[in-house]
């Protein structure tokens, strides 16, 4: 499912909910079946060796095998109705090889000795067919084998072990709160993902990983019948690399302010109550006067701006032209990086890439080509210093090893470069959000993500949000609506004048970030503290039809 489809689902702007088929990829299963362990690791290792040997025997110079079991659970409700409960399992093997200098890939759900050998042979045949029109042979950065290792998302409560009934009851309680509070409609959902994946390569790695992700969310809708206008307010939850403990709120994980926001843990019952009040206020809010404003952006909003304007343009495959036909290329060309002085943002702007942050969507032990995960700088003191690379790209930017950014959405898709967590470092000096707002004469404080669009080289963007508060002479002066801001990426990041300190640092993220042809989905987090950008162009989005 691409990100657009997913957002359509999560925004639920249509009464008739469109659920993309790919969201439910895999076979429907009994929820209890998800808790039964899959194939034994020793068996996976045996089968993987069989595949690696079969590939080598047919002439592969490199091979990797991914035996994956992917579990999904999605529960969707509206008002008093459970719309869908889906439990799916997908199990199979994907084999990638280099033969005659070219990549080849094949996948099968027949994970038997015969099936796996045939699949390995098919992968080699594809590689050899591609080699005939090859221009440059693949150069793979060296990677040491790790032997038998494993990694597991450090969850406290496996979401798949929580009874479906308890989740349904929670969501229906969320809906009741919204309807009793005066909402006209409410949609709510809990989505859980568990990737059980075993990776083996001819480098000598046998990596067993158990990865968990969770995303609870809702949308409250209020309609003003007389005018025919409607407004929505989406939950301020984030998709997380956590278990069900994310839905066990604690007081120290709440961020007080004009609206309560959440860090590490989420209080869905409190947020839906607030959302219902917010959406009522939104209907009556003042329509924004277009013009230049200082923007104060909450992490629940800024993550998406970071995602689109920093994370995507620093993907090395885009920079090189591999995504030119679909997602596009990047304005952050190699010459800008080579110059060593390309001022992407103001000196306050420090952006790091990592696949380590606890609770983040990107956190894994090893990527999908057997590289141990790490952290590195992308933007340092405002200057572009690095990209996101995988093994066959590392040499292009002079790296001796991959940065571990390879990912495939399932066993049946070929792995390729996907973004790690890309986050804005908090300000070094103590600064609270209140103190930041005190210094704004004419501004807008934006909470939650909304509409988003950016060009194919990531210069020009436009973002909406969930909640907009007018700032007048250092004080919040009430709610605004019909707000979107447009900017040029480099101008925007150079207009960054203040970043709150680490006590305000929070993660937001994308549960389904789309890229590639055929499209694949990736989950990734983006952290930041509240940040101020001066003099940004704001437009009014109200229209009449």
């Amino acid at each position, binding site marked *: 499912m691409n990100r657009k489809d997913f957002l359509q689902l999560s*925004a639920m*702007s249509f009464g008739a909910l469109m659920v993309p088929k790919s969201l439910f990829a895999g*076979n429907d*299963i009994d929820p209890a079946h998800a808790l039964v362990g899959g194939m034994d690791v020793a068996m996976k290792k045996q089968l993987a060796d069989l595949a690696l040997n079969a590939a080598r025997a047919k002439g592969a110079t490199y091979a990797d095998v991914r035996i994956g079991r992917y579990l999904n659970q999605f529960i969707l409700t509206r008002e008093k109705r459970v719309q869908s409960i889906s439990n799916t399992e997908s199990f199979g093997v994907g084999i990638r090889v280099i033969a005659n200098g070219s990549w080849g890939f094949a996948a099968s759900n027949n994970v038997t000795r015969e099936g796996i050998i045939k699949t390995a042979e098919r992968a080699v045949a594809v590689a050899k067919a591609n080699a005939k029109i090859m221009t440059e042979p693949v150069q793979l950065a060296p990677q040491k084998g790790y032997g038998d290792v494993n990694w597991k998302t450090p969850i406290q409560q496996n979401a798949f072990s929580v009874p479906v009934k308890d989740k349904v009851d929670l969501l229906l309680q969320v809906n009741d709160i919204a309807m009793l509070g005066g909402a006209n409609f409410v949609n709510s959902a809990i989505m859980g993902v568990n990737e059980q994946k075993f990776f083996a390569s001819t480098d000598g790695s046998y990596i067993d990983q158990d990865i968990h992700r969770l995303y609870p969310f809702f949308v409250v809708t209020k309609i003003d019948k007389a005018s*025919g206008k*409607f407004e929505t307010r989406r939950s301020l939850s984030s998709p997380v690399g956590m278990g069900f403990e994310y839905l066990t709120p604690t007081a120290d994980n709440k961020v007080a302010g004009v609206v309560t926001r959440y860090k590490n843990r989420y209080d869905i019952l409190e947020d839906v109550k607030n959302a219902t009040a917010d959406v009522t206020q939104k209907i009556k809010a003042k329509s924004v006067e277009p013009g230049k404003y200082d923007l104060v952006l909450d992490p629940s909003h800024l993550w998406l701006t970071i995602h689109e304007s920093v994370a995507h343009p620093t993907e090395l495959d885009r920079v090189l032209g591999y995504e030119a*036909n679909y997602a596009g290329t990047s304005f952050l060309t190699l010459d800008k990086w080579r110059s060593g002085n390309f001022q992407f943002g103001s000196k306050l702007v420090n952006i790091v890439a990592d696949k380590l942050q606890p609770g983040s969507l990107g956190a894994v032990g090893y990527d999908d080509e057997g590289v141990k995960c790490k952290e590195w700088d992308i933007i340092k003191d405002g200057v572009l210093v690095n990209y996101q690379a995988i093994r066959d790209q590392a040499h292009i930017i002079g790296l001796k090893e991959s940065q571990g950014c390879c990912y495939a959405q399932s066993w049946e898709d070929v792995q390729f470069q996907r973004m790690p967590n890309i986050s804005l470092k908090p300000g070094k000096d103590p600064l609270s959000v209140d103190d930041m707002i005190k210094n704004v004469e004419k501004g807008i404080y934006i909470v939650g993500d909304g509409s*988003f669009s950016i060009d194919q080289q990531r210069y020009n963007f*436009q973002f909406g949000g969930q909640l907009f508060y007018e700032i007048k002479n250092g004080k919040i002066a009430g709610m605004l609506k019909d707000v979107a801001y447009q900017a040029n990426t480099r101008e925007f990041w150079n207009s960054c004048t203040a970043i709150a300190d680490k006590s305000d640092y929070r993660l937001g993220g994308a549960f389904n970030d789309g890229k590639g042809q055929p499209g694949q989905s990736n989950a990734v987090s983006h952290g930041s503290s509240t940040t101020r950008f001066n003099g940004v162009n704001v437009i009014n989005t109200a229209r009449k039809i």
Partner: protein
Amino acid sequence: MAILKKEEAQVLLKKVLGFSKADECAVRLGGREGGNIRYARNAVSTAGDMSTLELTVLSTFGKRTGTTTINEFDDASLEKAVRRSEELAQLAPEDPEYMPLLGPQTYRESVTYVPATAAITPDTRAEAVARSIQVSKEEKLEAAGFLENSTTFDAIMNSKGLFAYNTDTDVIFSITTRNQAGTGSGYAARGFNDITKLDTYTATKIAASKANGSADAKAIEPGKYTVILEPVAAAYMMENMFRALDARSADEGRSFMSKPGGGNRLGEQLMDEKVTIYSDPFHPELPVSTWNNDGAPLEKMSWIEKGKVKNLAYSRFWAQKKAVKYVPGPSNIIMEGGNASLEELIASTERGILVSRLWYIRMVDPQTLLLTGLTRDGTFYIENGVIKHPIKNFRFNESPVIMLNNVEALGKPERTISVESYRSYLIPPMKLRDFTFTSLSDAV
């Protein structure tokens, strides 16, 4: 073999239904065979081949439904799948919107399967791509493209005697060519049931001429302009509107089709009189399956007639609640046009902008269908009926509903694909006044 013939599918589905003990049972069998090839920097980057066959069993007791999917087809597995779906149904909550299954239906056939497309091999794909790369190299450009073909079949049967079967072939191709300096970019996209209609050489030639023609674009001020949208741009712009032709969301008050005070805008003149949009699964240029997920037969259906909202889709539940006729959603989308070619539309334009492609369109406001997005891969300034020079790309903020009120002229409809969903449409090039561009983009 993942593609079963009608009779083979019928035999298998009958056997599965034979295991059912539920009040109602529906079974669905779907198979897909195909492959893809992707290239960039004038060389193949990835390629793959796939084959899947899947059976879904849906069992219902009262208003409780459970679903199981399997891809094993021995008798024991089939029976296990039926039992599993029955167990899940017993555990499921009651669905207040459950609608009983449809009984036997009659369907007319549409020619959606083309043997030549079903016969595509990895070599066919590589050869098609080689022709595209050849053009790119000749023109000293860099090509990035994607070709994907599939043969699918779908069959449903239920305990009330309904049986439907369809098989379909599809091929899509898209190509972007860029000049070495990165100052020019061109695009073409094609989608067909029939591979013999796909000419990757000519499509790449078009993309190449746009890439060369769009180099060194000049900036002009954002604002309201007369635009000519090529079909691939127009289809992408209107896709969000097609999705919202739904009565329930309109009646609930949360759609552009909602009426202030309640109800929907059925019958209202919402667009220019030149706008007529309908579905027709039998259209020879855009054949699609003649039945939907409910097993309901699909016929020609008018949505917008001379600018008036003629029909909205009513789900079976919503139709019953509103005591109206069930109206299945659009099977495909065909928009009527005129006879003018793109060149003739350009020639008739005193001052305007030719838009080759739109990009990253997202909803800004669902109540007016205000969308934002950008032009891409060839944007040109027209003066006195000729293309004067390429211009820099723009961001727009525009609603397709407002846009379709500002129609100056429509050209000859052609089959095109959405650059994001890859769905095929039959859409004319359109000349529209007062299209709102809100800022410039440096992107090429």
